[in-house]
């Protein structure tokens, strides 16, 4: 799985960080998403898919070949 985030779209809602804290964080100085792990291990996949599905700005993109 490959994860990308769109900082311009992100509204800093923090849903991704609440759901998958090992993969996403937010910058301290504006709350915008930081991608910690662009190719998360398989035990993270369910959480990352959930984060992408609920992100209110549709700012998380997944390209999964598995």
């Amino acid at each position, binding site marked *: 799985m490959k994860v990308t985030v769109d900082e311009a779209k992100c*509204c*800093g*809602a*923090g*849903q991704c*960080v*609440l759901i998958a*804290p090992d993969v996403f*964080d*937010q*910058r*301290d*100085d*504006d*709350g*915008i998403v930081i991608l910690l792990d662009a190719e998360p291990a398989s035990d993270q996949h369910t959480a990352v*898919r*959930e984060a992408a*599905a*609920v992100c*209110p*700005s*549709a700012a998380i993109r997944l390209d999964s070949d598995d």
Partner: protein
Amino acid sequence: MSHNDQVLSYPLHYDTALEPPKEWEQLRGQCPVATIELPSGDRATLLTRHEHIKTLLADARFARPTAADNAARVAPAGSGGVAATGDSSLAIPDKGEPHQRWRRLVGKYFTAKRMAALRPSMTATTERLIDEMVQQGAPADLKAGVGFPLPVYVICDMLGVPADDRHRFSRWSDMMLSVTRYSQEETHASMGEFVQYMSGHIATKRANQASDLIGMLIKESEGEGEGMSDAELLTTAMGLLVAGHETTANMIGKMVAMLLADRARWERLLADLSLVRAAVEESLRFDVNHGFGLRRFLTEDAEVGGQVLPAGTTVLCGMSAANRDESAFDQADQMDLGRAPNAHLAFGAGPHSCLGQALARTEMQVVLETLLRKLPTLELAVPAEDLQRMEGLLVGGLREVPVRW
């Protein structure tokens, strides 16, 4: 059926507080772009499908109507608080780059991590409120005892305003969010008091270099062209105080009521506390009383579900109806406490999606966890059908949530 055949009078009628109005299903199915008449007599367009609402809210061209838009009015002439009338004295930038800049200035204080750090103190406050409620004896109103005070204490602490003034805040916020409950004279007068109160606070903080959220925003605004203007600072502080308590307070009450309305739900949580996070999301989705709905003013033509809505249209997004949309959620009319993913629209979507959602979620999770732990025998003290909705405000909620344990 053409969309103008029928003009629905809005808000819709509810038979009981926790059940959806019967029109929703038909609207989503047959008339997802419907014409409605607001309490003002003006007409607007009601959307009820998840996909349509999500698309429109994500469209950065549109925002809540401002006084300058000449949009459909929500409240009848002579009533309505500033949040309903879109009074231009609210100086927060409404869209585009200025809005994004404002969001980032404020949003950094509401990140998931910062909210997680507040958890221990929120838990302590919640425990104290529950103890006080228990001391007074059953039955008790959970909304008055826990739902209302917790978010007020939390936001007052963040903003650095005294929680002792909370009764005044509640009144001011009801006034701002009023559709038909108060006259315009009353809402104007109370807005004046609120402005004066908050301006005084800001002046004191400026003098003392306070380290709370307002103090930080002041500090960042000191350089030329940096941070917020004085007017922005004032409305931001007022807006956070109002946004930070009324919605969350009501949502806590509704969450507990829904979870107790069918005791099997409560039992399931007692048996598996790891469901708390998902149960909070499902409560946000399942709630049929999100309030008036989100408004958008179309400054350009927009396409929704293959239909062009002309510039000048005022659109009302029925989030609660969309949250029950079968095409977005399996068994949408069932409360499934383990539902995931749960892309409900309770906090809106797109660039205006609720700024305080990590805070609201944390508060709801803390209340639910603490109630399950301290009062496992909690139950509703009245039949669920007898719960009463609040009317006349932009936010939705129950008047009381009577419980015993």
